[in-house]
C-alpha cells in the first residue's frame, strides 16, 4: 500500500539478494583470539576512515565531543577484560580518540531509554 505503514504482500524470489533493497554482501575478516586483546582488531581497522565518520555522527556537537574525549576514557578501566584492552587497541590502531571508541561500544546501554 502506498500510504503508511507501506505494507506489501509477502515477498518471494528475493534470494539470491539483488535489486534495490540489496546494497552489497558483507566482507569477511578473521580475528585471532590467541593474540593479545590490544592487537586483535588491528587488521580489520583498515576501515579507519569510516570509523572516524561514525564517531562524528554519534557526537556531532563540539562541546559534547569534549566531554566524551575528556571524561569517558575514565570508564575504560572499569570495563571487564578483555573488552577494555580491545577497545584501547582499536583506539590506538585507528587514531580515533579513546572516548569516542568507548562510546561506540556502549551505545546500546546509552540509547535504550
Amino acid at each position: 500500500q502506498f500510504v503508511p505503514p507501506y505494507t506489501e504482500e509477502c515477498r518471494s524470489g528475493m534470494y539470491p539478494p539483488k535489486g534495490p533493497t540489496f546494497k552489497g554482501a558483507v566482507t569477511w575478516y578473521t580475528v585471532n583470539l590467541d593474540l593479545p586483546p590490544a592487537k586483535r582488531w588491528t587488521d580489520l581497522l583498515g576501515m579507519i576512515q569510516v570509523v572516524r565518520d561514525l564517531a562524528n555522527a554519534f557526537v556531532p556537537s563540539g562541546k559534547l565531543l569534549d566531554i566524551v574525549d575528556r571524561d569517558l576514557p575514565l570508564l575504560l578501566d572499569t570495563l571487564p577484560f578483555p573488552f577494555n584492552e580491545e577497545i584501547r587497541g582499536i583506539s590506538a590502531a585507528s587514531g580515533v580518540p579513546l572516548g569516542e571508541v568507548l562510546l561506540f561500544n556502549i551505545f546500546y546501554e546509552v540509547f535504550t531509554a
Partner: protein
Amino acid sequence: CTSVVAEDSNGHLFHARNLDFGLFMGWDVRNKSWLMTEKLRPLVVNVDFQRNNKTVFKSTSFAGYVGMLTGIHPHAFTLTMNERFSLDGGYIGIMEWILGKRDGMWMSFLTRSVLENATSYEEAKQKLSQTKLLAPAYFILGGNQTGQGCVITRSRFCCSLHCFESRWSLTTNYDHWKEPLFLDDRRTPAMKCMNQTTRANISPKTLYDVLSTKPVLNKLTTYTTLMDVSEGRLESYIRDCPDPCMPW
C-alpha cells in the same frame, strides 16, 4: 530489529534477523534516510573468531565494536540480540556502574562472552537468562536440535522465556505478551509471512523473503543475517529500503 528462529519439518533449525538501528538519531531530509543507519552500513563486517586456527564462533558486527549482536557458535547454537526500550534502561545501569555498583553485565559483552565460551544451547540459555544486565534486551536463541528455540526477554534483573514448545517458529521485536505498538508493528507482517511460507518450506532463502517484506524491512534496516546452525553457516547482506518505505 526483527529476529526469527524456525525449524523445518525435519527439525533443521534456521535463524535470521534484520538489524534496525538509528531511530531518532538524525533524519537526512534530502535522501529520506536515517543518518546513523547510513553511517553504520559501511561498517558492517563478518568476523570469524579463531583460536588455534579453528573457528570458535562467527559474527556479523561493526568495525570497531567489540561486543556482539548477531552470531553463531557452529553446530551448537545461534544468537541474536534485539533492542528493548524501557524507562528502567541503560541510563540507570550506567549510573550504577559509575557509582561503583558493578555486578551487572554490559549487554553486548555478555553476548560476545556467550558466543565465545558457551558450548551448548542450554548453557547459552542459562547465561543469557540469569546474568544481571545493565540494560533490558531481547535475546533470541536457537539450538541445534529440534525444539531448541527461545526468545529471552530481559529486564536488567530477570527474564521471561518464550520457547518453541508447540510452535515451529518464533518472531520478535516486541514483548510477546503484548500487542505491538500500532505505529510500529513489524511482528504481525513477519508472522503472517512465516505462516504463509509454511514449515515445510522454511530455509535461508524463504527467511530472506520474509525479512525483505515491508515493513519488516524498513529505513532503519542496516543488514540481514541468515544462519544455519548445523551447517555452521552465517551470511549477511547490507540492505536498503527505497521509497515508499516506513521510517521504522
